[in-house]
């Protein structure tokens, strides 16, 4: 088991640079998730680590060895693809054994490793089936099994669950979490689903337009996003952003005139425009709150989402616990807590 180190990694396709200098240390045995909107370069970054794309600049090392010029098979990695990429004409057993056969591993060892992986993934009874006779979840297990038998230093997952339906996805997520415990291997996991990232990862790397925005433990990203992009990307429903102004005493003037004292490291200069971020679940209702007109209500049973409009026209989403009997057209007095809001300057950086 080993760590992965990226230093100043860049990638261009033709004249277009898609990865703009990424530095990252993935520790030994760590589960790291790459998240970001589509086109942010997370899959490209994974393919660079896998060796399926060549680096344009920078250094990449796995287990302390520089692997810039090594082919995928010699990097000590195994990859699980979004489309599973099983060989259609081979049985599940042969799919898992293929890599070992190519490296001239003895028949006995191959058999041992394939059976062990199959036992771990509970697909022992499917080994002589072809991929077309397997369900999506079973195919995904075979694909993961193919990765396990290679006994790689690093596992790479490229959106492995996004082809599965919702309920199966939840189940496979649990299984991957279990796999992580069983194997204790270094894993890098690309996903656009932040729930997967939040639940599985030890650390999350948030990527945007080919740059790393923030690296941190899931709850660190939730509680202390370093900029407006991370704040808006992590958390569901997404964070609300309000335009407010700083008062001379350091408090924020909310729409409707209320002042809110926010503990910050840097006090914004009085009068400067500041963006205030507040998660829908951190907005309370109480007397003396800022009045907001309800535009629409979404009832999910366990929670109620209210789309509201403030006096100055800014819109917000408020999440209330339980089935709250509110209706569109009513006025909701909203209360914010200084401890649970985030402030960002004009460039989107956290204050």
């Amino acid at each position, binding site marked *: 088991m080993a760590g992965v180190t990226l230093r100043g990694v860049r990638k261009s396709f033709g004249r277009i640079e898609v990865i703009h200098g990424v530095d990252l240390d993935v520790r030994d045995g760590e589960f790291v998730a790459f998240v970001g909107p589509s086109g942010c370069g997370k899959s490209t970054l994974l393919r660079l680590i*896998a*060796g*399926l794309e060549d680096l344009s600049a920078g250094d990449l090392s796995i287990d302390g060895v520089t692997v810039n010029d090594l082919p*995928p098979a010699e990097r000590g990695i195994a*990859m699980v693809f979004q489309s599973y990429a*099983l060989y259609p004409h081979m049985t599940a057993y042969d799919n898992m054994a*293929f*890599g070992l056969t*190519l490296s001239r591993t003895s028949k006995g060892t191959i058999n041992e490793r394939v059976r062990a992986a199959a036992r771990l993934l509970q697909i022992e009874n499917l080994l002589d089936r072809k991929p077309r006779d397997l369900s999506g979840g079973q195919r995904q297990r075979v694909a993961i099994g193919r990765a396990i038998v290679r006994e790689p230093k690093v596992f790479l997952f490229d959106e492995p669950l996004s082809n599965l339906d919702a309920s199966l996805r939840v189940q496979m997520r649990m299984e991957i979490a279990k796999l992580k415990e069983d194997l204790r291997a270094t894993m890098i996991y690309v996903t656009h689903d932040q729930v997967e990232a939040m639940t599985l990862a030890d650390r999350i790397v948030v990527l945007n337009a080919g740059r790393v925005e923030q690296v941190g433990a899931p709850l660190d990203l939730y509680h202390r996003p370093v900029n407006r992009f991370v704040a808006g990307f992590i958390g569901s429903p997404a964070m609300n952003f309000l335009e407010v102004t700083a008062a001379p005493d350091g408090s924020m003037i909310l729409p409707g005139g209320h002042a809110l004292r926010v503990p910050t490291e840097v006090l914004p200069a009085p009068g400067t425009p500041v963006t205030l971020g507040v998660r829908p679940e951190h907005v309370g209702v109480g007397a003396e709150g800022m009045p907001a007109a309800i535009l629409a209500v979404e009832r999910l049973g366990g929670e109620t989402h209210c789309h509201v409009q403030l006096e100055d026209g800014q819109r917000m989403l408020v999440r209330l616990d339980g089935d709250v009997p509110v209706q569109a057209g009513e006025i909701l007095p909203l209360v914010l807590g200084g401890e649970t809001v985030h402030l960002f300057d004009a460039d989107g950086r956290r204050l």
Partner: protein
Amino acid sequence: MRIRRIAGRAGLALLVLSIVAYTVFPFYWAIVTSLKAGSALFTVEAWPTHPSLENYEAIFRQQSFGRNILNSLAVSVSVVALSLGLAVAAAYALGRVRFWGRTLLLLVVLGVSMFPQVAVLSGLFELIRWLGLYNGMGALALSYMIFTLPFTVWILTTFMRELPKELEEAAMVDGASPFVIVTRVFLPLMGPALAATGLLAFIAAWNEFLFALTFTLTDEARTVPVAIALMSGASQYELPWGQIMAASVVVTVPLIALVLVFQRRIVSGLAAGAVKG
């Protein structure tokens, strides 16, 4: 309404019938003629009154027709094997590897097949003399690839392009070299395309006439189409129509059998090249 529907069906049936008659009649006539002997050839009848296999015996006894069939078989099989081997390798490069001038190269390959055979005949003749292949199987195998390779390369390239890229990448991660990827991952998936292109190449080589006539001299080196065309009767003034027809039937039957066996695969192969597999 009903009358119109019946009329429509009758019209369609008539059309199908005439198409079938148009395509099958020549072959039927060949069979009928091949079963006739002597002057019975010149009477018109739907089925010979005294059918005999005399002509079939004669082509193998009087002519070196058995040898000609073996020649044709050897040439066609080696053309198919060589074309598919080269075309699979070329298709991997043209369909999977990005390099400068790839499209141009594909167009050149297609362009080669647009020259009429006669245009390249004399140049090719010189080439074959220079290589010392004249009057041998090698000359035919080499020259036939001029017209089999363009379409085998094109069909296999489009087919290979449709195979998912992840499959190749998974194999690369598993440690497969390009050769292993082609032979152990792609080739088993290309069965339908290989069957279709292989059969088309076989038919083309089996029926080829002009090159076979030009590049062979002696009876022992001739292939079936040339042998049939040059079949001679007892005298210079007699054309052995019965034997010619018997020989034609003998060489057509294996083709029909092959097409019937591979029919389903050909259709799926040709369709897969065009749309998506």
